[in-house]
């Protein structure tokens, strides 16, 4: 009996049950690290306190790298845009959407915008130079740019484009005139309108950023608890937050059907 108990203890030590260790959360690299972490920290502290576990914020610059780490089980929680989520879901079925972050208008949806500076093109028709985009897997990246230039000639592929890593860099690159135009999240673009950045055209609303759990590393109960905690957080609690300040909505896979159709429209095949 003693041998059995000892063996059990050894097994428990070597293979702890999911949810027992420190959780790792990776936010979307929309802006620089300081801004991103400062934005996400209150929400994460709240979750850590309620769950009674440590949650570490890990800043990763590259979307592709984030998805890879998630698949490897090195990330427990991640914030994803709709496109990366759909992409990940296709490749890795163990993703669990927990909650969608509401935008400033209180809706769980956002748009992407084609932006320019004070001396840039004033309409889509005037765009005749390469665009700058956040990242390939960003919803406001190639997908949105292609949708925004759908009926434009020359088209996106002919104009050319360059990924700069995040939305803030896109905004500032356009402000500095390094690119005549770029595509980024509309909400982020509005932060830079005082630097003469202006929106030329917006996409239709996409599902908002989603907090995703990794079923490989989280048990179902804990994942559900995280989703519930976010959705039920009181306005008083989140009033001092940045990310999540406007609340959360229930996430479901059907929310992303529209995005899948758009992808099909412009010929993006996830397979």
């Amino acid at each position: 009996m003693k041998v059995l108990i000892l063996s059990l203890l050894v097994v428990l030590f070597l293979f702890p049950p999911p949810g027992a260790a420190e959780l790792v959360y990776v936010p979307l690299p929309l802006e620089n690290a300081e801004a991103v972490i400062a934005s996400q920290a209150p929400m994460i502290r709240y979750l850590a306190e309620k769950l009674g576990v440590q949650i570490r914020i890990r800043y990763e610059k590259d979307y592709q790298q984030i998805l890879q780490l998630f698949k490897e089980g090195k990330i427990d929680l991640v914030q994803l845009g709709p496109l990366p989520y759909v992409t990940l879901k296709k490749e890795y079925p163990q993703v669990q959407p927990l909650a969608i972050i509401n935008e400033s208008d209180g809706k769980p949806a956002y748009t992407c915008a084609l932006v320019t500076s004070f001396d840039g093109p004033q309409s889509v028709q005037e765009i005749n130079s390469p665009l700058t985009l956040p990242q390939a897997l960003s919803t406001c990246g190639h997908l949105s740019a292609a949708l925004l230039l759908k009926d434009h000639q020359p088209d996106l592929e002919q104009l050319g484009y360059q990924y700069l890593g995040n939305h803030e860099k896109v905004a500032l690159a356009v402000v500095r005139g390094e690119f005549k135009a770029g595509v980024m999240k509309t909400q982020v673009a509005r932060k830079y309108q005082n630097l003469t950045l202006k929106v030329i055209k917006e996409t239709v609303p996409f599902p908002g950023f989603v907090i995703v759990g990794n079923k490989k590393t989280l048990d179902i109960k804990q994942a559900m608890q995280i989703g519930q905690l976010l959705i039920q957080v009181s306005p008083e609690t989140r009033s001092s937050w940045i990310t999540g300040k406007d609340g959360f909505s229930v996430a479901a896979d059907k929310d992303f059907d529209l995005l899948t159709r758009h992808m099909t429209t412009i010929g993006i095949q996830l397979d």
Partner: protein
Amino acid sequence: MFTGIFYVAAFLCLLWSSGFVYLRHERNTLERMHLANQTTTLNMVWQAVVKSHKTGMQVYFDTYIMQPQVLELLRAAQGGSESDQAVQRVRLYRYLYPIYQKLRERDVRQLHFHTPDARSFLRFHSPNHFGDSLATIRPSVVMANRDHRYIQGFETGRWLSGFRNVFPILYSDEDLGSVEISQPFESLRREIWHLDKSNDFMLVYKASLLLPKLFEEQKKIYGSSLFSQDWLVEDPRWELPDSPPKMSGPAQKVYAGLSESQSFIQALSQKQPQSVAVKVQDEFYRVTIIPLEDVEGLTAAVLLSFSAAPEIDEMYWNYRTDLLIFSVMVLFGGITFLLFLQSKQVVVEKQRNIQLIANTMNDGLYVMNDKGVITFVNATASEILGYSCHELLGQEAHALFHFHDNGRCSLSECPIFNVLLSNASYAGEEVFRRKDGSSFVAEVASEPMFKKEKVVSAVTIFRDITERKKMEEQLTHLCNVDPLTNAFNRRYFLQVLETEIQKSKRYRTPFVLAMGDVDHFKRVNDAFGHEAGDRVLKEIVASIHERIRSADVFARWGGEEFVLLLANTSLSVAVPLVENIIANIRLLDFGEIGVVTISFGVTDHHKEDTIDTLLNRADKLLYEAKEAGRNCIRASE
């Protein structure tokens, strides 16, 4: 004894306490000096880094900001509509962005232009945040624009806190506002770390000064320090990519334990740089606190450095070792002293007992050292000699009261003193002299006293035997004298005779033996009684004693017979003497008894004589005298 132990224990406690206080004071002084030295050194290094930083920023300002294009853009931004200003801001941003990138590579994070009225015009690190007034939160900007002078110093801000370098921008006497070029604390931390790699550094901010200035989103980057909520640390979880590297493990432990260090908390409130020692897991660390004042003289932040302090560990180890050695020495000394006291007590008790014994002795006792000086004397000796003990102590016994040979004996000849020289005991009779000058015969016994087999003193016991001597003489006299007549008895006479024969043989000295017998003595006894006879005999003896010398021996031989030994006398001299004796006796008046006569046989000593031959010859001559009619003498050679 108990009182003695109490006082010794109290003294030892006092001594140990004094030593403890001294050693502790010494350790604390060394520790303070060490910490003061650390403070001075680190502060000097820090000041050097700050000066270097200031010089670098001045060069950047002169090189990159004060150029015509920049100044023209700033001038164009003065006045005009808001949209015109926005365009000029973007143009300035575009123009200087490559330079800002270059400066970032050199750790510059703050390139911030301000309007003359102290509002933000363009933050290169956050270009979309501008227009906010800095009048209340950035005194350095206000001062630079108001006084048109360069302002340097630590200051918190809405985005970043650190060492500020605010340069006023004047172009052809036109006030174009100011610009700030600053590096983050991390840059200065690296600089100081390169100069002193033994330390870990961290910066903490005064919450009451920092929080009111921060943009809301920036507040999330700060957290309370582990030692006080009044002080904040930036990025406490090291989540930002360009955060300073984590401090070393020991430094983090020290940091975590600072809340329990009262000396640290106290030092934190001081305006002067200080160092304190903090003990973590049995090891000491130095924590140096360098207050950073903002341009208004308020302590806005504190630079903390952590470093191992093996020197303080050594000080404490030395202190503990010294204290242990001192404690053992005090304990050992105390035990030794107690043992000494105990042994001294035993000695005192022994001395007291000896003194008691000595004083209760009937004999006099004194001890003299190797010089013959009295070192101890008992009461009886004092009483016998008539001196007080005080008068006797320290005096030479021989000179004071020895009276050998009527005082003619020198010290070296003194048999009592010679005990010291000969290492041998002495017993005998000596004459001592009292204080009043009278002398007495003392029976003396003296023994040497040794110390490591060397004679160092002698103890002498004496008693006054004057009375005893008298009694002895009386007894001797009684043994030798006939109780009736007071003449020597026969036994004594035979001893003397034997002695005289031997002396005569050896020295050829003559002597004469006369044997006498009272004539018709029986008739006296019968007629007048024995008492009358005894009276006759007494008077005859007394008469004879009057005629003979002291050297002569006259004895009652038995009954009415007497013998007379005339020493050193020839027969020719003796005969007239004896005839004279006979004549005197015949003249004695015995009252009713009448005349009593005596007859003598007188002979001298022959060399072949024995007692018997001599006595027989005298007896024959006496018989002849009796035969010749009595009251006469018959002598022969």
